[in-house]
């Protein structure tokens, strides 16, 4: 493999990794607070792409406006899912909450099939992103440059909120000790809503960029990226935002690279993430950066 082709793959790997990272942050934030795999997260991400589609094609919004609308609506959806599917089960066994999460995910998927139709739709890509840079013999679409930049910016903003603001402090308190946070006068329900809202908004950002990269929209498009992003979060260390980003990059990169170097394994692509997950869980169950979830034995 030539150096140039390697660079090509590298750029694709970084882009895919950034997308996984953005979705993974939402999983990790929710898991950090509720110890819950928000199965619906991938579907929330999918909704963002459809909001973009309908915003631009049906409501003739300018692209930028559609992005803002998509982010806001998706954030609201995340909060709604938490209200309806998770909050009533706050004190129930984990298995119930998980089933509810799976149910919510399926409900959104099936509703989307009914409402949006099963036929693929084309994500609206603005002219700006149609540009492809040619460096030597390789060609890199403009999106490949923007996606990692946006991921990094989103991460910085998020880390600022979590580490430097009062809300962020409350979020950290709730994830450390739920009951104690409540007793300290923190409105736990509000904090959880904010967490879901922020996670979903990041998923929306991811969704918009996903659409630019993979413009073929189907209602089940959130399923695999969602699962893989969760795996990325586990790989990095669940509950750990930086870990989620690291895990996302690692997973995206290795998916692209394995196929690049071993093309005969292309058909097995969707299995890599799971194999990697199982390996990580067996040999480093706390993830690469250590999990930020305490559990008393």
């Amino acid at each position: 493999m030539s150096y140039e082709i390697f660079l090509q793959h590298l750029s694709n790997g970084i882009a895919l990794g950034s997308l996984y990272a953005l979705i993974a942050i939402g999983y990790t934030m929710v898991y950090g607070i509720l110890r819950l795999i928000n199965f619906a997260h991938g579907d929330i991400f999918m909704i963002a792409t459809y909001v973009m589609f309908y915003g631009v094609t049906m409501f003739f919004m300018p692209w930028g406006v559609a992005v803002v609308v998509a982010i806001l609506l998706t954030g609201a959806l995340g909060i709604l899912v938490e209200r309806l599917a998770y909050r009533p089960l706050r004190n129930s066994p984990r298995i119930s909450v998980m089933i509810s999460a799976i149910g919510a995910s399926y409900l959104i998927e099936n509703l989307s099939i009914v409402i949006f139709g099963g036929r693929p739709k084309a994500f609206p890509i603005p002219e700006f992103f149609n540009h492809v840079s040619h460096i030597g013999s390789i060609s890199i679409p403009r999106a490949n440059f923007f996606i990692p930049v946006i991921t990094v910016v989103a991460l910085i903003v998020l880390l600022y909120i979590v580490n430097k603001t009062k809300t962020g402090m409350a979020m950290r308190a709730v994830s450390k000790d739920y009951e104690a946070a409540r007793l300290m006068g923190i409105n736990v329900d509000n904090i959880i809503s904010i967490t879901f809202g922020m996670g979903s908004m990041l998923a929306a950002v991811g969704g918009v960029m996903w659409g630019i990269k993979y413009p073929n929209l189907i209602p089940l498009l959130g399923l695999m990226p969602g699962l893989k992003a969760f795996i990325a979060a586990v790989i990095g260390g669940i509950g750990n935002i930086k870990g989620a980003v690291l895990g996302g990059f690692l997973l995206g990169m290795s998916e692209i690279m394995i196929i690049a170097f071993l093309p005969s394994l292309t058909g097995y692509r969707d299995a890599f993430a799971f194999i990697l997950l199982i390996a990580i869980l067996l040999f480093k169950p706390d993830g690469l950066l250590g999990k930020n979830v305490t559990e008393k034995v």
Partner: protein
Amino acid sequence: MLNKNNLIKIGLIVVTGIVLAILNATLGRYSLRILNLAGIYIILGLSLNLINGFTGLFSLGHAGFMAVGAYASALLTMSPAQKSVNFFVKPIVPILANVEIGFLPAIIIGGFVAAIVGAILAAPILRLKDDYLAIATLGFGEIIRVIFTNTQSLTNGALGLKGLPSYTNTGYTWTIAILTIIFMFSLRRSSYGKAFMAIREDEIAAESMGIDLFKHKLLAFTIGSFFAGVGGALLAHLMGTIDPLMFRFLMTFNILLIVVLGEIGSISGTIVSAIIVTISMEWLRFLDGPIDLGFMVIHSVPGMRMVLFSLLLMIVILYYQHGLMGQDEITLEFLKSKLNKFKKKEA
């Protein structure tokens, strides 16, 4: 041995047998298919219930183990001619090319292969808990499916297998379903069944009572996978066609739905909900089809049925945390009175 209780049980089985025989003789093709599906879903529901409900291992990989049973049995029952018709992209591996055996041994082998695969896959991850186990087992389901899509000379890849002999009939499904029911009741009553439940209740305490967690979890998982394989084999020979997409997570979801609706851990609940879910899934099929309004035809809306079912699942988990049947097992008397009521309604 033949005390009153046992007599009632035997009587119940005999009555069920007679009812099934009558149904088998009178129902049309379509209804018979539903009857068969109900029996198969009972087996599948009970097998997932053993893993999730008795032992508390939240497994989401059931569809994968069903796929193993389905493919293993199908490759054994299909005629060599049929196989060569199917495998036109790449020829089938020579060992399997000329094999053709009877249905019953094929079902049993299907079950055993699924059990072995289940045991091998589960062994390394059984120490994971709750959601980690769930996501890892979900991964297994996906990995099995991806492998089956790619092993062209073994499974015919994405094309699937067509023209399976349609061996599955009411006799097979319901005999096996009833045997599965008896097996599960007996297991739960046994010392091992109690050990499984102890693990579900409190792993640390169970281990400190001398229960080997690994061994017992592996046993539960393996037995559950066996019945998943058996169910998969029956399903394959009912459908006549199998392909990897059939065994997506959606399949696991349907079975999970049955287990949850029937109260996790309850045997009779699982049985009743398997029947209800199967019948209503078929009955609601019209929702997915095209609807002709006279002046225009609404395109078929696949998914409407599943919208309803996901809603149902949500409602049950949110409002009836103990399933539709309540928490307790249905006793013989309870069943009788319900059955009577049901029959009256039918009439």
